[in-house]
């Protein structure tokens, strides 16, 4: 199929419709407003529901409701708006409801700035809401990957009955790249049945109950054990990552999203002066590909691991867990909407090598 030029935000919305999503609830915020804008036109055309809610909190609770009724559903926002959704996300995890949440990150904390950033890593991977819960978190680095993962996100959400987050930065939301639609578009009729959904008993079955309240501590403990068993299955089966040019690399960059591309540009600069550098790119930041990173870092040629982020250093914690002390781990990054340059990333690598 021919390639088409798509803007990240619009591509993610189209990918959702093609994945059979027919419910979108959200509220505009830069730099993701093209998602609701696109949905407002195309979701009704596809026979679905577009609703601009009165707030982000309302939107995530509409997602909860629609998901409970068995719909393939999503919401999207950017950092401050995602903070507002945290209670609903925790409730969805507690009630085991699938859904896709898109966060096109901007600078924070608070209102911060509208420029791209990655300061929501802890929130996405550690949970900004209460309780022992996890989200599958995809962190695409180009628009083709955005659309491929968006379709997969809905599948995994349904498979594990848990929310999946698409964690982008403003750069990926705003840029355009060629996209090839690899999978056939799905309609809701093509999707697997959800026998747990509250669709009305029609007098033929016992009522389904969707709830996150387990008032008896033993029952709540059992529920947590059940969720944990599920998260372990996700950890075993759903780790994704990519490694570039890591053969004989002296420096191993670790970065996700846009900084992974900057790190590759930095690796080229280093290559010009004879320093070999590779890039390890987690595609799922939860579950984090710790073992794969450990293996990449344990190669004899690697002398330094350098984490690159558009934050003051959050994923670097996971890098340290993965590398587990076998190689020195350092960090380079900019926050608040400033993009680190390949030159400063290359400088950080030289410094890490002691050159």
């Amino acid at each position, binding site marked *: 199929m021919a*390639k088409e*030029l798509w803007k990240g935000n619009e591509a993610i919305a189209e990918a959702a419709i093609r994945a059979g999503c027919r419910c979108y609830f959200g509220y505009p915020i*830069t*730099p993701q407003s093209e998602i609701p804008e696109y949905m407002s036109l195309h979701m009704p055309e596809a026979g679905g529901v577009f609703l601009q809610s009165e707030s982000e909190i309302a939107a995530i609770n509409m997602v909860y409701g629609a998901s409970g009724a068995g719909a393939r559903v999503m919401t999207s926002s950017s950092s401050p708006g995602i903070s507002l959704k945290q209670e609903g996300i925790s409730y969805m995890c507690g009630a085991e409801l699938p859904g896709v949440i898109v966060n096109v990150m901007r600078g924070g904390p608070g209102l911060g700035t*509208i*420029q791209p950033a990655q300061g929501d890593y802890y929130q996405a991977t550690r949970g900004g809401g209460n309780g022992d819960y996890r989200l599958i978190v995809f962190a695409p680095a180009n628009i083709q990957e955005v659309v491929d993962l968006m379709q997969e996100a809905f599948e995994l959400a349904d498979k594990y009955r848990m929310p999946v987050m698409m964690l982008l930065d*403003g*750069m990926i939301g*705003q*840029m*355009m*790249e*060629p996209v090839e639609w690899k999978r056939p578009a799905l309609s809701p009729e093509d999707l697997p049945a959800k026998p747990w959904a509250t669709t009305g008993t029609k007098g033929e079955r016992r009522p389904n109950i969707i709830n996150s309240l387990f008032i008896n501590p033993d029952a709540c403990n059992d529920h947590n054990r059940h969720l944990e068993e599920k998260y372990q299955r996700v950890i075993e089966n759903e780790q994704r990552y990519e490694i570039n040019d890591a053969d004989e690399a002296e420096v191993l960059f670790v970065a996700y999203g*846009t900084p992974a*591309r*900057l790190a*590759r*540009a930095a690796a*080229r600069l280093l290559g010009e002066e004879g320093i070999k550098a590779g890039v390890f790119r987690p595609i799922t930041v939860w579950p984090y590909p710790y073992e794969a990173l450990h293996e990449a870092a344990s190669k004899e040629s690697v002398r330094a691991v350098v984490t690159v982020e558009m934050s003051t250093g959050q994923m670097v914690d996971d890098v340290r867990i993965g590398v587990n002390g076998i190689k020195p781990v350092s960090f380079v990054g900019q926050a608040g909407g400033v*993009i680190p*340059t*390949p030159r400063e990333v290359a400088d950080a690598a030289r410094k890490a090598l002691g050159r």
Partner: protein
Amino acid sequence: MAYNEIIVAGFGGQGVMSIGTTMAEAAMSQGLNVSWLPSYGPEMRGGTANCCVVIADSEIISPIVLEPSELIAMNQPSLDKFEPAVKPGGLILVNKSIVERGIRRDDVRAVYVPSLEIASELGNMRVANMVMLGAYIEATKQLKFETVINMLRHIFTGKKAHLVELNEIALQRGAACSSGL
């Protein structure tokens, strides 16, 4: 190996973003890899706008252009801001109609395009950006006029079909500005 990193910059409303998307669309239909990245911010008509376009026959590593191989400066602030960043040996296309100065560097080439005067002669000020694009295509030879014209045929249909020819002439007039390179 072709690896063109372009910054198109000017006032909002000058067609800066659409020059970029046209280049990206054309390059993609020629089978090249492309990326297009807009500046975005609390901006409005009359404010500054720019976009980064990368066109390559190999994989595009970073969509962010810090040191452009080509700069299309649609106004004076854009030339002031981005001229120092252009790669040595690079190219600057200057919108001569409103940029009052010449380039200050001697290690890059320049093409001066009176885009507004040409657009005025053609009777439609909105083709000024196509004049600039024509100058770019002729100067770099990375894109084909034919590709852009085919794209225009898809965009301008029915009542607007006459605009294809106008835009084609605008491209040619722009190209003539680069013929001395």
